[in-house]
């Protein structure tokens, strides 16, 4: 461990103002696309439902097979 203590000097530079402006801009444009987002997430949820149903079906078939083997 180095002996010199490390301090932080508070304050903001020009680059930070630029980054904050870019973040605000990005947030605003994201909000305008909300209908598109809703559509994509709903489609994803349907896909997820299909996968889960298939998994349920697979599990019940395995269970039946196991019962037959017993």
């Amino acid at each position, binding site marked *: 461990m180095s002996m010199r203590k490390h301090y932080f000097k508070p304050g*903001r530079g020009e680059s930070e103002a630029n980054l904050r402006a870019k973040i605000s801009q990005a947030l605003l444009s994201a909000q305008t696309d*909300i209908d598109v987002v809703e559509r994509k997430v709903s489609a994803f949820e349907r896909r997820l439902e299909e996968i889960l149903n298939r998994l349920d079906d697979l599990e019940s078939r395995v269970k039946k097979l196991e019962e037959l083997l017993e």
Partner: protein
Amino acid sequence: MVVSFSIHSYRGGTGKSTTTANLAVMLTLYNRKVATVDLDLTSPGLHVIYQVSQSQMKITLNDYIYGKAALEDVVVDLTNQLGLPRGKLYFLGASMKPEEIAKLMREGYSERFFREVAKQLGEAYGVDYVIFDTHPGLNEDTLLAVLSSDVSFMLMRMDKQDITGTYVTAQVLSKFNKTSYVILNMVPSDMAKAPELQAEVSKLLGVPVIGVIPFYPEILQHRSRGVFILRHPKHPYTLRIKAVADFIVNNIK
């Protein structure tokens, strides 16, 4: 070379602090030096999991941010306290005083803080990784934390609100060409079994999913009393955290 991560989520209660605490400990088991920084300013919680006493947190991150204290006065070395066999674990805690929380929330961070604290932790303690446990949500200050770290980890639960919020967050981050990864947390056990889950979520978000952590009631029962993986080294949760740590150690330099 220090690598800084932010651990972020769109919603609160997704397990950010639990994941941060356990992942950091796991990385020390790879003989890495890790610093965890509690930036969840409105509800700091890492100190509870690490069982850091109030007497160890007389000087906090807030003092450092305002230039009132040195980094070395804020850092708590938890390596021996947690009985870690190798590596090093450091903790930087945020103030629990309401007036100090309000002041920082009102004034916000400085972008320089993230770069400076990571650089100084590298100089003073030789850390390999700095993990920022951020405040949830999609707001300017949180995004500043995410964008100012080298790599972003987004934690997501599999409910519609969180999926939507994480999708929007991923879209915003992509505008900045940010290196991001997603970890699915508290995934219902039937869903976690689906082999396509990781690929489907990656496809939706346009971000690689590097971990799927099922919901384990034992984590809730543990009630943040210490670091779960240290108490339950053979639990499946520990193995899932190890898989994420493996990814970090092997892929993020």
